[in-house]
């Protein structure tokens, strides 16, 4: 007689096995964190139905079961291990198990050396992720599954983190992508995440078993896995109970008195021992004073209008909500509306406009403006007069409340926008590109997990006596912190308060990264829906030690600001859709693939009545026009053209394969010249693409390494597919010395990635993989060194020939670099002539890859700016002291470019830095870049890029930058 209890992150499972090992009792329920209560109930049921279990062996498993078992002195079995035990027993012949749980994902390999993999600190691709995505679409996971059955095509969605996925999905929804396709894409993303994150160099093949809740309940998720792995997995009958059964099988030792255990569990009192923060309010009086103070910041409201009076419409089509406002010419608010987005902003705005025409029958719409994620589609759909960048809209609204405002922080559903105001212009913008933990949806997720709406959930915390100190972390990590706090006996009130505090801490320390309140500003206006919660507002004031202004329309500020701008800049007659047109309004969506460049953007083509069209999903403007890019000034494009001259060629000798990633990008002119001069052929891997990435995905050993490094795996596969017999990818600790820094290193990943490739790509065993350590920085020693290496692999080669080839290679490389420099300068002169702003798009040489930069260079050009690169201006700067150790060649160029801009004092030349997610070195470079630029009052702009991109955020930054520089 054995009982197994599986305490998962969201569900509780219990089985009782008789002496034959058959299941006589099983139960599966969501536990809503009431673990003790529910497990005691389940044990009670067993005793009632099967009295013979009064004395049985019992053990506990599950991710939330460890502390629970420890407190009660019960046996604990690690859950992956439990799964392994059940599978070996019940499904012999299994090759691999994929198990997805609430917050964890696991793969177990059985054949060829048992191995277990589980997700580390990342909860992307788990049940929680699917729940989160479903709630974004406002449906249940089961409905998501139903939707996915009618899929038509798959979009690429990042699943590393719910945050990234959201920023992929939201634009898709806003642009009108079919929900069925989005649903299927979500499942597909889970598959990719599981394979990339957990397979780590092993292929998942053979007999596959699917376990765990999500895979059990969601048939489409299973078929997504089947498709992704090109196999047919089985989902066994008791798929939900494998962990519980494994725990039962593992139970050893004496039989326990289950009735006693049941009582022990029920009476399990928590320690109440956790780290706590200061309460939000000491007493009711303090709260009353607080509410009184904030009640003073109200917008001027008017509830009547005159016949024929001009009214102005502001729309903020945000990521999760649509906010609208109607004002009169004096800026008095006549009407406003706050609507959840539900993935279809067009419908919402339509009904809003209908309401406006109804309500303000005799008035005239004098102007209209739209801002937010959905700006483009709404503008096109309804003929809105003005489209403005969000930052400007918010600033305009905030000025109405505090004319001297110098810092604005807006915390919305999924985004945080903060900016400083200097000299009446927007100066420094902070956006949360990599993290949504400081946002409203973060609170929302937790609130709904406990069955509350966000408002009442946040209220719970107002008078909490000991708010849990959760620190500042990503939502995903926060789940486990909260779990731990619950286990330590924190009340829901204290958790609620703790979450409000952590929202604020995230915003302050992760997004803004402020060290003190003084750094923010003196006159701070807070806005956005999240600040409507008093707990969050209070936590913010407490954390920065200063009172702030929260307008009573804090959630509507974007829309209100838009309306104010509409009034200010109104044209003679508004182009907004008329009442009659609105009645016949139609909206159809079609999917298409652009195909005008290698990006192959998946487009959604929206057609509206009246022939207006809006195309979404594009990364550049090529999709709209037939105009060639010839007269744009884009040094990225130019560099790519230069590199394209070094193509695959045959030679007298063997063919050498070069994987086109990381440092190989910049060194291509060198190696190509070197090898062709020696008579070798050269084969290049195909250009990067999502497909190429997926090709090599199964050999990536570290899921947290940067995307450019991950891509290398695909490039190597590409070379192998071409049948190349020799692959050349040397380890290079040192880069060439450009005399700009204290040393000339490569970063550890660039330097040693060949080692990773060698040890993880099994099929390399069949080819000659040359990954010796080389240093181009020692020109004198290089020829002898490479000669030795080549002789080992290719036999007889003359040192003299190698020497000549090396000389030519060094020359070619110098010519290439010089060409970039000269052309960059030419572009800047030309830009000056044409009166165009110049963006120095800084990054590393491999950011040239469109799969890595996601076409951001084109996006900038489409904003009417010229793009040059950091290495085109760095030769103009000589070595200067920095606050950090300046020891990496690529990064010395960054600092030099910043220095160039800082010294130049030309408002039309600005820096935008591309930062790869997961690039550890950029934690250092970004701060240094900022401080170099800000030391001479220049604006620093950075764009984070990853497997996915968020063109929305990029646009906000660029448009705000141009707005700030008077463009």
């Amino acid at each position, binding site marked *: 007689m054995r009982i197994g209890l599986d305490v998962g992150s969201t569900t509780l499972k219990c089985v009782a096995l008789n002496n034959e090992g058959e299941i006589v009792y099983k139960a599966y329920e969501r536990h809503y964190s009431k673990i003790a209560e529910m497990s005691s109930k389940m044990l009670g049921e067993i005793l009632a139905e099967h009295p013979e279990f009064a004395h049985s062996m019992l053990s506990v498993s599950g991710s939330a079961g*460890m*502390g629970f078992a420890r407190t009660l002195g019960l046996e604990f*079995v*690690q859950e*992956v*291990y439990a799964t392994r035990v059940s599978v070996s027993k019940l499904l012999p012949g299994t090759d691999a198990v994929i198990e997805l749980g609430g917050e964890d994902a696991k793969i177990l390999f059985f054949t060829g*050396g*048992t*191995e277990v993999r*589980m997700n*580390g*600190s990342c909860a992307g691709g788990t049940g929680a992720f699917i729940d989160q995505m479903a709630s974004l679409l406002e449906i249940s996971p089961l409905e998501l599954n139903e939707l996915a059955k009618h899929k038509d095509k798959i979009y690429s969605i990042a699943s590393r983190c719910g945050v990234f996925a959201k920023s992929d999905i939201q634009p898709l929804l806003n642009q009108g992508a079919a929900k069925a396709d989005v649903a299927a894409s979500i499942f597909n993303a889970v598959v990719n995440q599981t394979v990339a994150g957990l397979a*780590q160099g092993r292929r998942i093949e053979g007999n596959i078993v699917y376990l765990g809740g999500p895979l059990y309940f969601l048939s489409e998720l299973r078929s997504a896995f089947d498709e992704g792995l090109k196999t047919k997995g089985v989902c066994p009958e008791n798929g939900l109970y494998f962990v519980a059964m494994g725990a039962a099988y593992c139970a050893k030792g004496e039989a326990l008195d289950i009735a006693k255990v049941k009582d022990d569990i029920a009476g399990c009192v928590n320690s109440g021992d956790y*780290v706590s923060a200061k309460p939000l309010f000491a007493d009711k009086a303090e709260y009353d004073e607080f509410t009184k103070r904030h009640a003073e910041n109200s917008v001027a409201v008017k509830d009547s209008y005159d016949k024929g009076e001009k009214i102005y419409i502001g729309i903020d089509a945000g990521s999760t909500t649509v906010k609208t406002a109607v004002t009169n010419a004096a800026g008095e608010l006549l009407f406003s509306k706050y609507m959840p987005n539900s993935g279809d902003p067009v419908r919402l705005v339509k009904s809003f406009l209908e309401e406006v025409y109804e309500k303000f029958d005799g008035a005239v719409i004098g102007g209209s403006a739209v801002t937010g994620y959905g700006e483009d589609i709404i503008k096109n759909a309804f003929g809105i007069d003005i489209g403005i960048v969000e930052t400007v809209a918010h600033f305009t609204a905030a000025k109405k409340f505090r004319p001297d405002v110098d810092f604005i922080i807006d915390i919305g559903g999924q985004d945080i926008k903060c900016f400083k105001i200097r000299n009446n212009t927007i100066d420094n913008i902070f956006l949360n590109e990599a993290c949504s933990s400081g946002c409203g949806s973060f609170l929302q997720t937790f609130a709904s997990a406990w069955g509350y709406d966000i408002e009442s959930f946040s209220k719970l915390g107002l008078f909490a006596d000991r708010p849990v*100190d959760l*620190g500042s*972390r*990503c939502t995903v*990590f*926060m789940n*486990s*912190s909260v779990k*731990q706090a619950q286990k330590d006996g924190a009340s829901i009130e204290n958790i609620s308060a703790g979450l409000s505090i952590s929202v604020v801490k995230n915003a302050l*320390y*992760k997004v803004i*990264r402020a*060290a003190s309140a003084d750094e923010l500003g003196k006159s701070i206006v807070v806005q956005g829906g999240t600040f409507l919660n008093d707990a969050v507002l209070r936590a913010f004031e407490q954390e920065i030690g200063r009172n702030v202004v929260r307008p009573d329309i804090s959630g509507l500020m974007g829309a209100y600001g838009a309306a104010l701008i509409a009034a200010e800049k109104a044209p003679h007659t508004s182009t907004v859709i008329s009442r009659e047109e609105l009645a016949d309004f139609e909206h159809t969506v079609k999917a298409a693939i652009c195909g005008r460049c290698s990006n192959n953007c998946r487009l959604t083509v929206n057609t509206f009545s009246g022939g207006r069209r809006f195309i979404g999903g594009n990364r550049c403007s090529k999709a709209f026009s037939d105009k060639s890019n010839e007269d744009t000034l884009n040094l990225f494009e130019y560099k790519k053209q230069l590199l394209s001259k070094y193509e695959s060629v045959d030679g007298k000798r063997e063919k050498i394969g070069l994987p086109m990633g990381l440092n190989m990008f910049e060194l291509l002119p060198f190696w190509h010249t070197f090898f062709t001069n020696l008579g070798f052929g050269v084969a290049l891997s195909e250009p990067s693409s999502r497909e190429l990435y997926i090709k090599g995905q199964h050999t990536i*050993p*570290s899921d*947290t390494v940067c995307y450019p490094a991950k891509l290398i795996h695909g490039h190597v596969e590409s070379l192998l597919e071409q049948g190349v017999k020799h692959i050349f990818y040397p*380890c290079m*600790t*040192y880069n060439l010395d450009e005399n700009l820094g204290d040393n000339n*290193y490569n970063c*550890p*990943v660039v*330097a*040693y990635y060949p*080692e*990773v490739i060698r*040890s*993880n790509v099994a099929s390399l065993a069949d080819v000659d993989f040359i*990954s010796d*350590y080389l*240093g181009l920085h020692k020109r*004198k*020693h290089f020829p002898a*060194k490479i000669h030795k290496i080549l002789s080992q692999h290719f036999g007889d080669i003359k040192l003299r020939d190698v020497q000549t080839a090396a000389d030519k290679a060094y020359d070619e490389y110098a010519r290439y670099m010089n060409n970039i420099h000269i052309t960059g300068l030419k572009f800047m002169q030309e830009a000056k002539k044409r009166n165009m702003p110049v963006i120095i798009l800084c990054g590393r040489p491999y950011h040239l890859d469109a799969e890595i930069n996601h076409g951001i260079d084109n996006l900038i050009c489409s904003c009417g700016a010229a793009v040059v690169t950091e290495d085109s201006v760095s030769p103009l700067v000589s070595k200067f*002291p*920095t*606050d*950090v*150790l300046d020891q*990496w060649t690529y990064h010395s160029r960054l600092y030099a470019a910043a220095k160039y801009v800082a010294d130049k004092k030309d408002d039309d030349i600005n820096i935008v830095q591309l930062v790869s997610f997961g690039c*550890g*070195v950029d*934690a*250092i470079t*970004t*701060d240094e870049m900022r401080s170099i630029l800000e030391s001479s009052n220049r604006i620093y702009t950075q764009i984070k890029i990853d497997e996915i991109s968020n063109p929305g955020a990029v646009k906000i930054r660029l448009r705000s930058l141009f707005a700030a520089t008077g463009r």
Partner: protein
Amino acid sequence: MNPENRVEFTKEMMDYTLLAPNMADVHFSILTNIFAEYGYKVELLKNDGRAVVDEGLKYVHNDTCYPALLVIGQLIDALNSGKYDVNKTALMITQSGGGCRASNYIHLLRKALHKAGYGHVPVISLNLSGLEKNSGFKIRLSMAIKMLSAMIYGDLIMLLKNQVEPYEVNVGDTKKLVQKWIDDINVMFENRKGYSLREMRKILPEITKSFAEIEIKKTEKVKVGVVGEIYVKYSPLANNNLEEFLFSQGCEVMVPGLLGFFLFKTDNRLEDCKLYGGKVLKKYAMQIAMWFLTRYETELRKAAAAYGDFCVPETYKHIKEKCTKIIGAGCKMGEGWLLTAEMMELVESGYGNIVCAQPFGCLPNHIVGKGMIRKLKELYPESNIVPIDYDPGATRVNQENRIKLMLSVAQENLEKKA
């Protein structure tokens, strides 16, 4: 704040208190006394808890590696504590040099101090590469040699302690003996004794003897090795008391010593000469340094084998030879190939269950840690390696759960063998 006007630690500051982060308990407690002997008042920081992490998060870029965040947080938290006169306090931090982010810790610390309003507090770089100089702080040759001796004592004591403690009959015996030796060594050092190789030849085996004499009961225990980024590997503050946790799970733990790291860092310069060419003089100097360090290694190994039945670590030369079959000797940033080598050495000496501890997003670890696990699994099918990421947000529960999985498999393997 240019490097040129960094606050130097001058001769006039000799009465300052020097605060330094703690890393490896045994080693560092002996080191402190050497500084005292040369007139520096060094205090090892033991403050921990949320405040340390919070200060770190506040003043250091959150994507910077966890050790930087912790060390800087700890130093600033100490300055905030009111325990020290901030006008009479200096900070000391190691600086390794090399292509890893870690070389930048000191600069990040200065930036953080500046932000926190402690811009006037001098920071001393403790390094052997001559990276930064302070007129008031010099590591003299005699001092360096004493520090080396301290490290050897530390390595031996840690090695023996780890192998005795899990099996001791009278709980607490081993800890007491460790403390006794730390005290004894300190007294010796105060009397300017015990740090010459000649003296160590006698004292080291005595240490082994005393540990061999502790009453133990040998039982079959899961043997776990710990490798990783150097700070996270040793510091309980960073690794959430990893050793203690493993110990509480009934494991014997092996943590490779510090000497290997020093040999590695010295040897790297030789390798550089070999791979990329270099001055002959530098090569000779490094060869002498290697020879010198190896003499200590020999004594350490001899001493560990002198009594009892202790597992003695292989020589640096040996593990390098073995390891460079799978990874290049030129892979030198951070822990470089040494980390892979340590894993191989652990597996071969019976510690095939390994925790590879690294800060989240540690760059060298993508290569030499996580990047090599597959290869190791191929070479040693019995190996059972779990990489664990440490950062301010990773919870202990999550980490312990993953380690438990590794331990379950280890337990099963142990039972299979029995």
